[in-house]
Structures are given as C-alpha cells and as structure tokens.
C-alpha cells in the first residue's frame, strides 16, 4: 500500500507541476529533479519511471505531450473538463441515469460523476448493461475517427469504427473494414486479444449514418442473402409475442381466432429457421414453397436422424 500511495502522490505531483508551467514545455531532467519520488537525476531508471507514469496518466485521460525537442507539456485545455454549464435539473438527471443503469462490474459511470458534480443516488440499479473488454477504447476510436485493429474470427481486421450499439446481451461495433464500404457489425465480446488504435481523423462517417438501422432487429434480416418475401402463421398462443419480436417493418394480418400471419423480407434463412423452429408447432411458414420445403427437410433430417 505504501508503494501505491507514493506513486499516487508522485502522479498527482507531476500533474500539479506540469500544469503550473502555464503551457511552457519542460525537460525530463527538470521533472525528475523537481518532482519528489523520482531519482533526482536523468538516468535510464528515471526515464522508464516517467514513461510508465505518462502511460498511466494517459489512461486517466490526461495527455502529457512529448515535443520534438524531448520536452513535455500538459496544456490546460487538454486537462480540464470543459465547462458543461449543466443546470441543477440536468445534473440530477445524469445522477439518476447513473444510479439507474450500471455497466456490469464497472464503476466508471459513478466516477464520471466525481468530475461532473452531484451525488449519485443510492439503491439498487434498474438496468445492468453488459460490459465486455475494449468498449472504452473502441468508443474512443469512434469519437476520434481512428482506425482500430483487432483479431476477429481467427484473422486480423483493421476497421473504421462508426459507433457502438448494445442490444440484448451484446455490444456491437458498427464499422466497415478499411478500404470497403459495407458496414459490418462486430460482436465486441468476440474480439480476440488487444485492440490497437491508429491515427485520429483518418476517415469520415457518412452523413445520416444510423447505428440502429445498421443492425437489423429481426433475426431473418441478419444476413446478406438476396431478399425473399416470406409469410408465416403464428398460433393464438404465441401471436402477441411474435408480433413484438417481428418489429415494425413486418406486415401483420390478424385472424379471427387470434392467430397472426406475418409477412416480411428474409435475408438470412438461418435466422428465420432458428426463430421459426424455436416456436415449435406454434409457427408455420406458409410461403414461398422453397422455404416450406427447406423447413420440412430440416425437421425430417432431425426426425429421422439416428439416435
């Protein structure tokens, strides 16, 4: 613990020292001589120590710049929180939001309130959002418009992050791969290894790009197959829930007995089958014949499969 305390103190002292320079860059020699906790002379050990501190502060959102002449500067504009001019009502609303919605195992929302002001309301939270690794760095990349490189599905991808969307249990990164136009959705929890970030302002996000529209909600649209129109009957017992799942783009005909017939475009036959078959005898595909045949063939393969 003693080691931690002296490091915290040194980090805070470095910040206080650099800010006190009023924007004038200083040499490493001065830093290690003047700030307590460093060796006092510019040795290799001191250099390593300062680089490590600089990286920790960078993670804290405190960017110490390195100038060409090996001097260092921390600008007030980079350090201080810009004035948000929150009204008391807005401050309360943010506090309520953080109290209501938590990221799984991550206190960062409450810590943001340390800086933004107000006191977090207590009590159990209403909503817990999943929080896989890499969310903060990917969001930083999307904001800075910096390419992100990571492993996915066994290969290395470099993408241009457009934004992040959470739906159900997952976060999705909407991003075209470098040199391509098609926006793909990467499941953040499936990213393999570390994420590295390239130069800021490397690309533009098209005007009017809509994160939600980029990730269709209906399971039968989670693919890029040529669209075919399907009609599906759902029993009275499951009709209400199926209509909600089918989303607003689905056409619904209600039948007298409470059953529903849904009409929609399919671009993922796998997605349709999984949804349809999960409803067992409560859902039946009516048209087109090729989808009926496929479904029956799938079921027959299971019905006749050796056990």
């Amino acid at each position, binding site marked *: 613990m003693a080691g931690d305390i002296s*490091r915290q103190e040194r980090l805070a002292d470095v910040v206080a020292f650099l800010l006190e320079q009023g924007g004038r860059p200083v040499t490493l020699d001065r830093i290690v001589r003047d700030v307590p906790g460093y060796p006092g002379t510019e040795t290799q050990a001191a250099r390593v120590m300062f680089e490590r501190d600089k990286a920790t502060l960078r993670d804290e959102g405190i960017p110490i710049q390195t100038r060409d002449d090996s001097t260092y500067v921390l600008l007030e504009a980079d350090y201080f929180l810009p004035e948000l001019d929150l009204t008391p009502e807005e401050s309360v609303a943010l506090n309520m939001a953080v109290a209501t919605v938590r990221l799984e195992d991550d206190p960062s929302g409450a810590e943001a309130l340390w800086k933004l002001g107000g006191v977090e309301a207590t009590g159990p939270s209403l909503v817990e959002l999943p929080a896989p690794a890499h969310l903060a760095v990917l969001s930083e990349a999307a904001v800075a418009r910096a390419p992100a490189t990571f492993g996915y599905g066994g290969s290395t991808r470099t993408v241009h992050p457009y934004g992040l969307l959470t739906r159900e249990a997952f976060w999705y990164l909407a991003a075209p791969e470098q040199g391509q136009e098609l926006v793909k959705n990467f499941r953040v929890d499936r990213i393999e290894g570390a994420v590295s970030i390239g130069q800021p302002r490397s690309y533009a996000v098209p005007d009017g790009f809509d994160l939600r529209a980029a990730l269709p909600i209906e399971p039968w649209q989670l693919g890029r197959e040529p669209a075919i129109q399907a009609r599906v009957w759902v029993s009275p017992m499951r009709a209400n829930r199926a209509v909600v799942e089918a989303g607003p783009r689905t056409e619904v005909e209600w039948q007298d007995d409470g059953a529903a017939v849904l009409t929609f475009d399919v671009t993922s036959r796998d997605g349709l089958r999984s949804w349809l078959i999960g409803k067992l005898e409560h859902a039946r595909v009516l048209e087109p014949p090729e989808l009926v045949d496929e479904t029956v063939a799938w079921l027959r393969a299971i019905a006749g499969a050796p056990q």
Partner: protein
Amino acid sequence: VSPAEAAGTGTRRLLAIAPWLAARGGATIEQIASRFGLTPTQAEDAVAIMGFIGVPPYGPGDMLQVDIDTDGLVTVFGPLTFASRPPRLNAREAFAIVAASRAAAVLGGDDNPALASALAKLESTLGSTGRLAVDLDRPELLDDVRAAVRQGLRLRIRYYAAWRDTVTEREIDPVLVHSAAGRWYVDAFDHASGEYRPFRLDRIEAAEPTGERFDRPEQQPDALPFTAAPGAERVVLDLPTSARWVTESYPCEYEELDGRLRVTLTVVGSHWLARLLLRVGPEARVLEPAELADVGRDTARRVLAIYGD
C-alpha cells in the same frame, strides 16, 4: 486490480476530490466518502496524501493547504492550478456516462427533457454525438409493474412457464424490477410457491391488481439471480462446432473434442431442450441423460405434423 490500476484510481480520486473541496469550502470525511463512494478510511487516506501535493520549491506557499478543524471539517485551499477545476473524463468514464444516460433516456421515454439536454451537452463536449446507441427493450407491462412495486399492489398474473410450455395464473407481491443482459425481471413474493423468486417480464402475458396491498420491505432488496426453476437437470450434449452460439448464449461448461463441442448445461424439463435441439439441427445429440436422447426426434415429428407430414 493491478498496481498500475490502483495508482490510477488513487490519482483519479485525488485530482477530483481536491477541486471539489476547494470549490465547496470544506467537507467532513463522511461527506467526502459518501460523495465519492469511498470508505471512510479511503477518504482519510486521500486527504492525507493531498497535503503533500505541491510544486517546487515545496515551501509552505507551494503546497495544497489541507486543514482539518476540531469538528472534523476538511478544508482545502492553495495556489495550485490543478485544484481550480475538475479534470476531463477518461475514456471509460465518458463511455459509461453516455451509455447510462442513453439507456435511461430509452427507459424514460420523451418525458425527461433535463436528461435529453444534459446528454446533448455531454455528447457535444465529448464529440460522441451519434456514436453510441442503446437499444433497450421496453416491455408493455413495465410501467404497470413498476407502479405496482412503488405502491405495494398485489398482482394477479398470467405467466408463461417456458420449461413446461404452459401458462399459469398466480398472485405475486412485486418488490423490484430490474434488467440484466437485455432481459427484464420482476422479483416478487410468489403466493403459489410461497417464496421470493424472479419472473421474466416478457413472459407475463397479463397483470391485474387484485385490489389487495402488501407491506413493502423496509430495505430495498438486492436483485435475485434468475436461475433455473426447480427440477433442473444436468444434460450433456454433443454438438457440431457450428452450434458455438449455444455456448455463448447460455450458461454452460463446454470443451472441444475431435472437432465437436461437448456441452454440459442445466435444463428444466424437456421443452426448452427440444427447442434448442431443433434449432441446432440433425447433428445435435443428447449424451446424458439417456431418457432425453429421443426428445429432439420426437419433437421434430410433432412439429412436422403441422405441415401435414
């Protein structure tokens, strides 16, 4: 927590607490602890270190002046630039507060203009406008059930039991509504079973107040974990690797054996298992227990009947 993270957290605290104390004119250790979500010891440690922060030549006028008076009031004043205002949000904080606010905005609908304007200011300052979206399902009954929790109203519900594929009618005393991983739950005393248990909100088909009231618990309860219903059974499945989504979607243990997946999970009754097997397809096998080996085949035959097969 790694030493680097611990030092980062400690430094983050110091740099946030000092300007807050300086602006406020003073606070007790308890107030600092409550404002920053710390234990009193952590707050004391932070205050102790704060008194050592300064700039060369570290004379009395170059240090942050930290005083604790006889009433335990901590005051901070001093000439240092860093203590004049709070620092920027780091990437995690920025992400977390925007995500929380976006989710809360979905929940609150359009009737929270203060949150909408706070979010607009925040996103424009962070440059993150349009970069983050939260799609939160908002079940139709959410508002009714939340009102019942607030007012202590007993509800009569029609509840779909997935493990038996039946709809039951029961009376519940709802005490807490919460959402995890995209699903909504209401924790309630269930008069049918005589115990507290969570119910999935999307499986409640109808909810009506009975007219009776119940006494709300004195203390806000913690959310109950949604676990398998009574009669849960361990099953072992042999699945093709194309069914890897099963391991990501449900709590289970699994290993890869000769290019196949060996998945062990807990299921209640055969209905849910049958749906899973039909979705995976003809390559799925039930290894254990033996009496469930045919459940996929039998269910597929039953479903084929609606196609006249």
